[in-house]
């Protein structure tokens, strides 16, 4: 009886599982593709911004101020008569630059510290205490306080977001390294006399790539959100450089007369961050099936 039930269950379940697996595979590829397409599209916009802006984003036109979207001003104009479309297009440059720098720096620094810490007990105890301390702060609040201290500039915003995000990356890498160092092939490398730095570079670091890439794409998206929130609050990107966050921050005051001033950047922000998260989800499913349920 029990055997029969088990067999029936097994038979009933096997094709379903396989079908689900295939569906998952296709879906993870399509989420990845969709996310990557959007990121590429926004990157292209950012690169060719001066060619497609139709007007200088800083040009003042007091006669046209707060005019609704029209054929001449696709996204309308703001309180100083500046073209919102041009400002939005140029804003993509800030968001993507911050995101790319943060993702890159956090990855390089995080992997380096993570690998060292995973292999060295003393460094582990010291560094992890410090990182635990940094992670004890709510991220945006710490970023706010640091920017207030260092002063608002694009480089400071990037540096601050890196400080806030790196501990998470180190944790991920350290966790991977702690399990990798017990693997037979690492033992084998040690047995044939490979020096430790070479083991770290050739055997350990490459195997942390899957979770690192996933994490990097998450930080790519969250950096965009953090930069925009800082700029919205008036302490991120300085007001003379248009960024999605500070355009919305400035436009908020004109909500009664012209909601379009702060409308379109939000859609761009949401789409770009969503795309980064889709890339992350897609990568997770594609690169390492074991990570699927990890988050």
């Amino acid at each position, binding site marked *: 009886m029990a055997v029969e*039930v088990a067999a029936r*269950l097994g038979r009933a379940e096997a094709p379903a599982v396989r079908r*689900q697996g295939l*569906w998952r595979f296709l879906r993870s590829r399509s989420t990845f593709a969709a996310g990557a397409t959007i990121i590429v599209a926004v990157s292209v916009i950012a690169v060719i911004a001066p060619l497609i802006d139709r007007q200088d984003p800083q040009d003042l036109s007091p006669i046209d101020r707060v005019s609704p979207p029209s054929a001449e001003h696709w996204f309308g104009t703001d309180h100083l008569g500046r073209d919102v479309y041009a400002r939005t297009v140029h804003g993509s440059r800030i968001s993507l630059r911050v995101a790319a720098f943060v993702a890159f720096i956090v990855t390089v620094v995080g992997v380096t510290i993570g690998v060292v810490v995973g292999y060295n007990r003393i460094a582990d105890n010291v560094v992890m*205490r*410090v990182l*635990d*301390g*940094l992670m*004890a*702060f*709510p*991220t*945006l*609040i*710490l970023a*706010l*306080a*640091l*920017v*207030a*201290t*260092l*002063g608002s500039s694009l480089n400071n915003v990037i540096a601050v977001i890196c400080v806030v995000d790196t501990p998470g990356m180190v944790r991920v890498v350290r966790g991977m390294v702690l399990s990798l160092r017990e693997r037979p092939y690492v033992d084998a490398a040690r047995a044939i006399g490979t020096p430790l730095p070479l083991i770290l570079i050739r055997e350990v670091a490459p195997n942390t790539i899957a979770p690192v890439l996933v994490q990097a794409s998450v930080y790519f*998206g969250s950096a965009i*959100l953090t930069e*925009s*929130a800082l700029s*919205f*609050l*008036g*302490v991120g990107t300085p007001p003379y450089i248009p960024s999605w*966050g500070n355009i*919305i*921050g400035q*436009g*908020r005051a004109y*909500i*009664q007369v012209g*909601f379009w001033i*702060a*409308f379109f*950047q*939000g859609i761009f*922000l*949401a*789409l770009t*961050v*969503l795309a980064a*998260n*889709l890339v992350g989800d897609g990568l997770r499913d594609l690169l390492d099936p074991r990570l699927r*349920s990890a*988050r």
Partner: protein
Amino acid sequence: MTGYIIKRVLAAIPILIFVGLVTFSLVHIAPGDAANIMAGDYAGPDDVKKIRAELGLDKPIGQQFLEWVKRTATGDLCHSIFSGQSVGKLVRQRINPTLSLTIGGGILAVLIGIPLGVVAAWKSNTIVDRVAQVFAALGLAVPGFWLGFILLWAFAVNWRIFPAIGFVSMFDDVGGFFRSIALPCLLLGITGSAVLVRMTRASLLEVFREDYIRTARAKGLGERAVLFRHALRAGAIPIITVLGFLVAGLLTGVVVTETVFTIPGVGRLVAEAVQQRDFPIVQSLLMLLASIYVVVNLLVDIAYAYVDPRVRL
């Protein structure tokens, strides 16, 4: 259990000390001189000297730290450079709206997030699940301040259902109170629930893969009984840990939310202090919010160990 609690509390102490050190050193990592920055461009040397004395920057660093700890712990001795008011007083004046918003937003986030996550996992790969996942994905991607702007435009400017700015105390006017916190709470609820949906769904999906769920189904239990009597009991445990994330989201969300809706709360105080570079206030608030966060995470850990004895080992 008592041993576990003591262990966790002891582990939190060095973290709090570290948080204090970082917060304290903010004034010292400021490029140039914090007193100069605060004095602004039009200050004379005397003004800078006065601010430096106010900040205690003219004393040896060890003494500065001890004095800072003492001042922060009592709260009333840290004064705003600009208004001259003590942090304790400022926070007490502004705590009412902030508490209302975080409690309201937190309740809303739990009411939206957890049921949606449960249903998504229960009906996984159906249209309900898709909708929940899209909601969560959008909730994580849409910036809170922009969503707040849209809510404000739709419900306060366009339809004029809710007030656009300000906060009405519960003790003055109950109806006005609920109208004034409705939109901010909705914003905090939506943004907070996105994480809850994801985590709840993931943790329940894991439970649904367990052998005892298969056994329950195999012995002919209805789906409803499987969900309520078996899956939810085990699945509820990891959800507790999510509440730590929720509190972090609310603490940062309140800064943005109070700015969007012009509510005179602690979050707005943070934003203003940061904009004015009012270091004593920034430091005290950073310390306060980080301490709340540390304590909440401690409580979450203890609650988790309480319901799941395996953690204590």
